[in-house]
């Protein structure tokens, strides 16, 4: 499974949208119905799954699926 698909599958756990329909422009709260705690829990899962460390402040400024993916890519490149 590709990294992007794995990433989207994690998101899909918290909402009604499946990983294959997960468009990058979708917003976590407004479009996917994430609660603030869903989002925090999702960030924790990203850390565990992809072995990266997120700065909470930076991560919580993310609004869309695409922005989260971009941050993950940046962290992986840096790591």
């Amino acid at each position: 499974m590709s990294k992007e698909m794995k990433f989207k599958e994690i998101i899909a756990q918290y909402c009604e949208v499946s990983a294959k329909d997960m468009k990058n422009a979708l917003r976590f709260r407004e479009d996917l119905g994430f609660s603030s705690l869903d989002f925090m829990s999702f960030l924790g899962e990203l850390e565990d799954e992809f072995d990266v460390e997120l700065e909470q402040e930076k991560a919580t400024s993310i609004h869309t699926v695409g922005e989260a993916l971009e941050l993950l890519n940046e962290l992986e490149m840096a790591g």
Partner: protein
Amino acid sequence: MRNIRDIWDKAVYDFRDITALRWLEKKNIHEKSYGELDHIIRNVRTLLEKENFRGSHIALIGASSTEWLEGYLGIVTGTNIAVPLDAGLPDDELIELLNRSDSEALFLGASRANLYKKVYENCPKIKRIWMLTENEFSNFSEAEFDVPGAMEYEIATIIYTSGTTGKSKGVMLTQQNLSDNVRAVEYDAKPGCVTLSVLPIHHAYCLVMDYLKTLSLGATICINDSFMHMVRNMSIFKPEVMLMVPLMIETIYKKIAAAEADAFLRVGVNKDDGSSEVGISKAESSTEESSLMIKKALAAKVFGGNLRIIFTGGAHLDPFYIEKFAEYGVDILEGYGMSECSPVITTNTVSNHKPGSIGRPVDNVELAFENGEILVRGTSVMKGYYKMPAETEDALKDGWLHTGDKGYLDEDGYLFINGRVKNLIIMSNGENVSPEEIENKLSLNPLISEVIVTGENNGLTARIYPETELVDKKGLSPEELREEIQRFIDEYNSGQPTYRHITAIVIRRTPFIRNSTGKIKRQDALKENPAA
């Protein structure tokens, strides 16, 4: 003596060598026994005495940590008064609360070290600031003498809670208020029972139930470093008991439901060797028994394997979750409380519980009803709001606390809630939000003529009727108006803790419907005004 000192000294005497706290530092687990914790607490207590703090208000700003607890217990097991504040509040609000609470000293968490200078500059009563760090605490000199505990009628803690008038109120809880609540709550834990604390420590529910109560029983409390890591920490610490707000239960349920669907799918997919990733063969998977095995395996994966009880309160929980978690061997026990009652009023217990209800009153509490509103009387009811006599008079009448919640007792003595008298919005994470407080801030924008904040879909919606004259004058299209208001809301959000963020905006076409005295009818805030 009915004070916190008595509870703590007894715990240290009975459980000296048992681990009291466990926490993570860069993935390494650290721990401290009751005896080790008491050593530092005594040092804090005598330090305060040596620096002439007696009956003084001493604030704490920081996330849960060993030092926070040592600071708190050092304050309240002596003769001083703790003022725990929300470390997530903006700087100006914290400064205002430090001044309004007449705090004379401060224990400050490293994450808010930016406040150090500002507090000295803007809070004239603050004489000392200590950082909530291991380094600072290890430098406190050894206690050469001890200080007695406070009298039961003395104030132990002032907890700030959202006020309906837009100004937070300082709930004054006495030594007896808190210690009686600790004693009255039924909590099924033996010495050494492992708990994981995930709620913010400045909240009465967390402070009393997660810390004071469990310490009185000799439990081992594990500190969750961030909600981001809660699930990971559950598998590291393997707690037996946790306190959660409903929103946390909803989030965990999503995870476990997804993992369960995945597990069943995998059982069906792995045809080659007839096994699955959860250790159950395909043949077995078709039976009821194997379904239980899958759930047990998942409970071990998500909950750590030992979790048997989740206490919850602070907001409504759909009974659906109680049923679902029971399938994983976890009892969810709902309770009801408020800071003003130290905080537990009613609770379900392992032996006495009813889904949908918030339980029976604890031993030191009496309930009554006035026009459907729940009234509470008992030894855990607060002394009053700090320096707010009018608000105290409104809330406390003849010793009865007016809760602002509506409810009823069923024939078995279980309490059910069915509405609210006041306007507070109760978020699923247990935070109480005063809509007026936010509305006052938002209405400062000249483009906003009227605004009502409502709690919807786990977030806050600002329903705005714009200042039409100004909109016309500026020649703003509906899109431009929305963009301009959104920019203002974004700016407001950036200075607020997450639970106070406005997550949706509705621009109204008509002004709000008002009652005969000219007040906006909140219950009709979602309707357009047919008369306009």
